[in-house]
């Protein structure tokens, strides 16, 4: 059902090893193969420290691969060029810049400045509910609003693929649920393809079309689940009451190789 040209990102056997040339190499990612389809939200779920963020850095071109390859839009990734949008748990807004000047950051780096960049930014700001805050400094905003600005900064330079690295985990529960719903709506509207890293299974089920469960470090793909019971009337809140939600939650939970840190484990990387 998925033609080749509908795949916006493909990782084949991607492998990342830290300190490869030393006496103590650390294999963070053993072999990951996955496809991201156009307009799809793909969630990566795995135990803490399993190498999810490492994989993201490799996809963004911030880390070299020691094996396999990553293609974005048919182009092999070999360095960071801004081919993907990247959003982290920290909003990373520049505190000395106003909201609008934070949103234009990616455009400015690509050499677009002045009125053109500001027009794109103020359009996004208006559309996604931060009108009136254009000239505020980030310190004046709440955590949820700041993450929203970070999302606009990511959308402003219009990447096809957006990587979300636990973007909601620093927010309080209510803000998190509301922002999950908002972000899902916005990325669908903007026709973006998204990979979402999360350790929150509920967040994965409520936002993603497919969920990839990863093993402990060194990471490999353990299983893939398709969230088929979502439709136009479900949102981040009411999906949690769906009968299939509980079943999927329990299934994924049982697959996660969660290490009880209090007890320790021989699974840890030596």
């Amino acid at each position, binding site marked *: 059902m998925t033609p080749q040209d509908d795949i916006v990102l493909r990782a084949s056997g991607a492998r990342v090893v830290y300190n490869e040339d030393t006496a103590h190499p650390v294999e963070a990612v053993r072999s990951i193969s996955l496809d991201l389809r156009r307009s799809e939200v793909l969630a990566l779920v795995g135990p803490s420290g399993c190498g999810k963020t490492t994989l993201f850095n490799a996809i963004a071109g*911030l880390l070299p691969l020691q094996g396999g390859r990553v293609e974005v839009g048919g182009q092999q990734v070999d360095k*960071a060029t*801004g081919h993907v949008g990247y959003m*982290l748990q920290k909003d990373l807004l520049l505190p*000395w810049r106003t909201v609008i000047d934070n949103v234009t*950051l990616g455009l400015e780096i690509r050499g677009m400045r002045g009125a053109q960049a500001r027009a794109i930014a103020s359009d996004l700001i208006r559309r996604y509910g931060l009108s009136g805050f254009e000239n505020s400094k980030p310190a004046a905003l709440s955590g949820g609003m700041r993450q929203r600005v970070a999302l606009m900064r990511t959308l402003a330079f219009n990447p096809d693929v957006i990587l979300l690295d636990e973007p909601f985990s620093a927010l309080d529960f209510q803000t998190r649920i509301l922002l999950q719903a908002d972000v899902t709506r916005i990325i669908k509207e903007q026709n973006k393809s998204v990979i979402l890293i999360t350790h929150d299974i509920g967040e994965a089920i409520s936002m993603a079309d497919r969920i990839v469960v990863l093993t402990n470090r060194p990471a490999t793909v353990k299983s893939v689940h398709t969230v088929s019971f979502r439709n136009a009337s479900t949102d981040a809140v009411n999906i949690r009451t769906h009968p299939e939600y509980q079943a999927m939650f329990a299934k994924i939970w049982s697959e996660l190789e969660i290490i009880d840190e209090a007890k320790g484990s021989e699974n840890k990387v030596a």
Partner: protein
Amino acid sequence: MVDATTTAPNKAETRTKQTSFRVRVLVYQIGLLVGILGFWEAGIRLGYLEAYIYGVPSGVASAFASQLLDGSLLRHFWVTGQEVVIGFLIGSLLGTISGLLLWLSPLWARVLHPYMIALNGVPKIALAPLIIVWFGLGMESKIAIAAIITFIVAFLQAHKGTQQIDSDLIRLLQSLGAKPLQIFRIVVVPGSLPWIVSALRLNVGFALIGAVVGEYISAEEGLGHKVYYSGQLYDLNSVWVGIFSLMIMALMLEVVVSWIEKKLQW
């Protein structure tokens, strides 16, 4: 309505309280000064203190007036002021720029690291006699002392500022495809401003110390020279005139730096 009637007087009350607090602080400040000078003057007049060891406030005041009128005080003030300001500007500017630029070369940052620790630890004024030898007896050597000391402080602070920048922020800019110079301009320079500003504040003091100590060692003019020379002659009233003039200069520079701080701080 109930709120309005109860909060309005409260606000006015708070404001009056704040004003009366400020007035009290001012009254105490003046009172303290008058009290100290009064005890000092009385101690001399009643014979408990020796005027030739401590000076005497009335004598300081008349020395201040006569040296102001004959132009000698302004001359000394002008010389030291130039040394301090020029030294401060050269040192702070070059130090800040070099400290920031070091961010672009992790290799050199690493190479210079032990030297920076050594420079940071040494009492920088200990360099003064060397600099006098190198730059001679004129104003240039005092400017050089002030400049070299403030350079070190500004350099270390600016470099420290660049080291404190969140590495995730740099990663974000890299993921956007930013080149090192863009990261430098967009994040590193503005992100280091708080450290740069604190260096400026420290450097007002260091530039003053540099110029004055330089004048102690060897000079023909300047407030430091005046203080030192008058001390040698046991002219304690003139020593105090010099010290009070240095205080006035420090306050003036403080005002300027506070203004710059407001402009630069985000």
